[in-house]
C-alpha cells in the first residue's frame, strides 16, 4: 500500500471509529484529530514533519467520573498514529501516546496523577503545544515533553504546585541505567493576566532517537544523562499580545547548560481568527565551549477556519546549530481537532 493511500485509510478509520459511539450525553468528551504538515527545508529539502509534529491522525478521550459526593477521577487518553518522513516507508509508522493519565482527587485537596503526562518543569505544562509549530524549550531541555510516572499537584493559598517522579524515558517506556526524572514547579494560578513559575529538575534521563511510543524508537545510548536544572517561566496577556518567556540553567553530566526562549503572539483585534507569532529560542549545550548553542528565530501565522480547523505556517531560521548544518525551514500545517 502506498504511503498516501495508507494515510487516507487511517484518516477514514479514525473518523469511523470516532463517529460510531456518538449519541449519549455525559461527562465525557471525544475529539478526533488530523494533522497534515509539509514544507521545505534547506537541509533536508522536502520536509514532512516539524521538530515535534508528524503527519498523523488520532483522537482524545476525556472523562470525568463522579459519585453522589462529586467528581473524584478524571482520565485522558490522547494518541495518534503518525508517519515520520525521515524514516523509510516500513519503519516510518508508529503510535504516539500524548496523554494517558488518570487524576485522582485525594481528601487533602491534592490530586494524584498517574500515567503519561508533562513533567512539572518550565512553560510546557502551562501551555498546550501538542499541535503547534512553535514549541517551548522542553524538547531541548529535558529531551521530551511527556513521560511515564506518578505526580502530585494541588493549590496553596496563592500558588499552585505540582511535582512528578517519572521514568526519564519520554514517549516510550524504557528503564536503563537507573533512569528516573524528578520535577517540581510552583507558580501562580492560570487565571491571571500575569503568570509565572519556578521549577526544578533532577534525574538520570535517557535520550531517545524519536517520538514513538510503539514501536519504541531506539535510544541514542544505554547510558542516561544526569540532568540538574532550575527554571523560570512566565506569560503575560496584554490586549492583543501574549508574551511568553522561559529560561533554564543547570548541568548535563559535567557540562553547564543554559536555555532561554522569548515569544510574542499577536491576535488581530478585527480578525481574531488570525494570529502572528514570533519566537527566539536558544539552547547552549556547553557553556564552556564556544558556539555550542542551537539558536533559532521563528515567525508563524495561524488562521482559525472555524472551531475545529486551523491553518498554520511557520518560517524558522537557524542562527547556529551545534554540530549540525544550519537550516532554514518553511512549514505549512492543516490541523483538525473536533467532533
Amino acid at each position, binding site marked *: 500500500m502506498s504511503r498516501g493511500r495508507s494515510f487516507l485509510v487511517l484518516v477514514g*478509520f479514525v473518523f469511523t471509529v470516532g463517529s460510531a459511539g456518538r449519541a449519549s450525553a455525559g461527562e465525557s468528551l471525544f475529539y478526533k484529530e488530523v494533522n497534515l504538515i509539509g514544507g521545505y527545508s534547506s537541509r533536508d529539502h522536502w520536509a514532512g514533519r516539524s521538530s515535534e509534529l508528524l503527519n498523523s491522525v488520532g483522537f482524545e478521550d476525556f472523562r470525568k467520573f*463522579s459519585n453522589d459526593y462529586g467528581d473524584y477521577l478524571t482520565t485522558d487518553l490522547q494518541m495518534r498514529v503518525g508517519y515520520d518522513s525521515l524514516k523509510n516507508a516500513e519503519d516510518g509508522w508508529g503510535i504516539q501516546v500524548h496523554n494517558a493519565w488518570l487524576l485522582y482527587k485525594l481528601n487533602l485537596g491534592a490530586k494524584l496523577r498517574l500515567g503519561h503526562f508533562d513533567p512539572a518543569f518550565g512553560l510546557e505544562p502551562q501551555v498546550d503545544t501538542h499541535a503547534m509549530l512553535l514549541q517551548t524549550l522542553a524538547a531541548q531541555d529535558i529531551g521530551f515533553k511527556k513521560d511515564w510516572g506518578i505526580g502530585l499537584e494541588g493549590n496553596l493559598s496563592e500558588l499552585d504546585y505540582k511535582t512528578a517522579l517519572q521514568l526519564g524515558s519520554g514517549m516510550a517506556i524504557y528503564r536503563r541505567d537507573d533512569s528516573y526524572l524528578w520535577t517540581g514547579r510552583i507558580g501562580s494560578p492560570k487565571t491571571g493576566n500575569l503568570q509565572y513559575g519556578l521549577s526544578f529538575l533532577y534525574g538520570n534521563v535517557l535520550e531517545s532517537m524519536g517520538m514513538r511510543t510503539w514501536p519504541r524508537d531506539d535510544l541514542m545510548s544505554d547510558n542516561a544523562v544526569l540532568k540538574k536544572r532550575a527554571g523560570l517561566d512566565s506569560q503575560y496577556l496584554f490586549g492583543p499580545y501574549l508574551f511568553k518567556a522561559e529560561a533554564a540553567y543547570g548541568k548535563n553530566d559535567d557540562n553547564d547548560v543554559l536555555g532561554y526562549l522569548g515569544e510574542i503572539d499577536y491576535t488581530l483585534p478585527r480578525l481574531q481568527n488570525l494570529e502572528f507569532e514570533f519566537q527566539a529560542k536558544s539552547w547552549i549545550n556547553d557553556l564552556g565551549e564556544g558556539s555550542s548553542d542551537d539558536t533559532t528565530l521563528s515567525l508563524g501565522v495561524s488562521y482559525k477556519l472555524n472551531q475545529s480547523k486551523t491553518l498554520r505556517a511557520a518560517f524558522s531560521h537557524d542562527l547556529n546549530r551545534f554540530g549540525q548544518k544550519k537550516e532554514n525551514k518553511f512549514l505549512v500545517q492543516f490541523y483538525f*481537532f473536533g467532533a
Partner: protein
Amino acid sequence: MLKMILSAIFLLGLYTNAFAAVGCSLDDPDRDVKKLFPESSGYKTTFVTLKEIGGEAIKKEIEARLGDTFDSIYENLDVPYAYYTVLKGKDPIGYIHGVNQKGKFGVLQLVLATDLQGKAIAFYYQKISSPESAKFRAVDFTGQFKGLTLSDFAQRTAKVIDPSASSAEDFKATLRGLKKNLILLDLFLHVQGHQGGK
C-alpha cells in the same frame, strides 16, 4: 507494522464512547469552587452541547432571548459547555458556569456562580485580554453583578457603569456574555432536570 498499528487502534477504539469538543471550562475548578462556596465539599461536572439538546432550534431560541446572533467561532452548536453543580455532602448548593465571549482583543471567559434559583452569587473573569483588565477584574466592578438574575438582567445592568477609559467594547461584550451565561445555564438546568429558575 501498519497492520499491527491498525489493530491496536481498533481495539482502543472499541471502548471509546464518542463525543464532541470544550467551550469554557474552569482552569482550576478545585480552587474556584472552594473560593466561591467555602462551605462546599465537592462538585460534579456536566458537559453539554447545544447540538445534543436541540440543535438549530435551540440555537434560534437562545439567539431570540439574547437579542443577538451567535458568533461562528465561539458559539457554534458543537461547543461543549461545562457547568459545575456544587455540593455539600450529597446536596447541591449552587452552580458555576463559564462562557466564552468575543472581546475587543480576544476571547473573554466569564464565570458566574449562582445559587440554586439562578441568582448570581459571584462573577469573575477567568480570562480577559483588555489592557484595562485590572479595572474589569476589580471587585468594585464585578461585585455589581451580585444578585443578578435573568429576569432582572436589563433593569440591573442598566445601572452598571463601564469601569474602563477606552474599552467600551469589552464592557458591552461582558454584558452580552453574562446574559448568554444565564440563558444557557437556565436552559441546561431545565434540560437536565435540575432545579433552576428563570
